[in-house]
């Protein structure tokens, strides 16, 4: 988001043009959902978080400088919205195990491993989970993660390292799992 066309789109969006806002934010919705789902593990709650974040972005756009990289700016709003959602007692009590509840007995190994990994992700602290999702699910470079999370590069690295240590059993090669 740095070309002349993008500047023009941001200017139009700042003037209240929804179509321009859609052009600016729309391409980021899928990544935003992935971040939100990675954090919240519930599709509906993740969609709500992205929608709320988009409304916030719409309201905050007037303060954005034209040369601001939009992706980290918007993903930072999404990440904040996810943190807000995670503070909700209702969410943490009611929604946590909706996806991972093992009602049946027939699991593909991959599904089992996926469910276990999601459970392990939830056991991480918010900062570590966020850093891991941004790095390994959204495949973002470290400097952009630092920009999104608002912490120095070194802190991002240490959060990722701590997360990887905590989740090491889930990242062993398959044969090592027995």
């Amino acid at each position, binding site marked *: 988001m740095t070309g002349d066309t993008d500047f023009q789109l941001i200017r139009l969006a700042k003037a209240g043009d929804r179509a321009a806002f859609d052009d600016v934010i729309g391409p980021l919705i899928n990544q935003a959902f992935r971040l939100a789902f990675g954090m919240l593990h519930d599709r509906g709650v993740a969609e709500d978080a992205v929608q709320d974040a988009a409304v*916030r972005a719409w309201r905050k756009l007037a303060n954005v400088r034209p040369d601001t990289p939009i992706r980290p700016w918007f993903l930072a709003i999404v990440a904040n919205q996810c943190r807000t959602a995670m503070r909700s007692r209702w969410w943490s009590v009611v929604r946590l195990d909706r996806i991972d509840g093992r009602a049946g007995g027939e699991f593909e190994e991959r599904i089992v491993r996926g469910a276990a990994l999601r459970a392990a992700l939830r056991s991480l602290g918010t900062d570590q989970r966020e850093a891991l999702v941004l790095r390994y699910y959204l495949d973002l470079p470290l400097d952009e993660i630092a920009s999104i999370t608002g912490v120095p590069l070194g802190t991002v690295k240490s959060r990722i390292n701590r997360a990887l240590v905590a989740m090491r059993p889930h990242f062993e090669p398959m044969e090592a799992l027995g």
Partner: protein
Amino acid sequence: MDELIRSRVHDALDVEQPDMRLRSRIIASLPADESATRRVWVPDGQWAVGAVAVLLTIALLAGVLYLRSGVFPARHGPPPLPKPVPALVSPEGIAVGPDGSVYVSDYYAGYVFRIRPDGTRSIVAGTGTNDEMGDGGLAINAAVDRPSGLTFAHNGDLLIADFDGQRIRRIDALGFITTIAGSGFDKTQGSGSFSGDGGPATSAKLSQPLGIAFAPTGELFVGDSRNGRVRRVDLTGMITSLDSSKLPRPQWIPGYLAFDAAGNLYVADRAPYPAAFVGGGCRIVKVSHKGVMTVIAGTGRCGFSGDGGPAVEATLEDPNGLAFDSAGNLYFATGNRIRRIDRKGIITTVAGTGVAGDAGDGGLGINAQLDGPFGIGIAPGGFLYIAEGGGHRVRMLRLSDGVITTVAR
């Protein structure tokens, strides 16, 4: 090692994709009266939670003091106020009831409402939380999960497509709710999947059912959108899929449905959504009694063109709700417009300028702005009701003179 970690994380988290309409819903939900240029102070979420807690505490203390003051002794307090009916958030499906009331589902709020002819509104189903609980009990105490398409059975039962609950639910004449198709949210795969053809509909897996309609024969048809199938539930409760193998590509995404007076089924083939799955041709497909499928509108590419010409040569934006008037003309919601295909196959826009907005009440629908029209329904007398998901309201287009008004918010 990085690649292994990346692969495992993707395996674990790729189980869900966003609702295919998330992007359009987001744009539709932007506050109309608060453009980006207006500086609106919005409290930070944590701050707001704290402020609400403080206000609730103050209100609680004030209430206790008030009751203890003797004005309203605690034993004989004031009668409870009736439960307020919440405002519409994201109207989605519409059905016109045999009593003349209009029924509308609220996708995000998790309610189904009844709008009586006098304009008063009440809750028919839902608790305001999107979930699936409550089967066997009263619908007003049961949760519905992203309720979408609505339709009435010949005996007057109201059916609801639970888009996220992956079920079709029925409310009987006494107000009790049950599931009649779909085994519910798939706990192992997260988003539902496909199974069950040839068996009982209640054991089958649906994936994001959107439109529902009854054939004159009494069979129920379901637009099983994410499975890319139209499912049929026969009178014994067994489910099958229609054969769409001869339908020209692209693979369709069946959404809303409607039957004409002759018993032919019409299916809205939605716009593609690359993040979720391939397919979607922005078409209207007719399915004859014998199951022969014919594209009657749309070229397979999405867009807006062709008014005044043959519908098969026109391009359509994401088609949603479908409804027939008494003369056999087919109306459908598409983009921010309502378009009509007459009996000769000619397509015309009858409402909406194509620009999302709220303007135009009291004037001609063709000059009005619509904001995310999804479900539509036509009442006897030629009144076309439109659920405007982005506009947070239900509007009515009088087909006799083309005038549009808002009937519920």
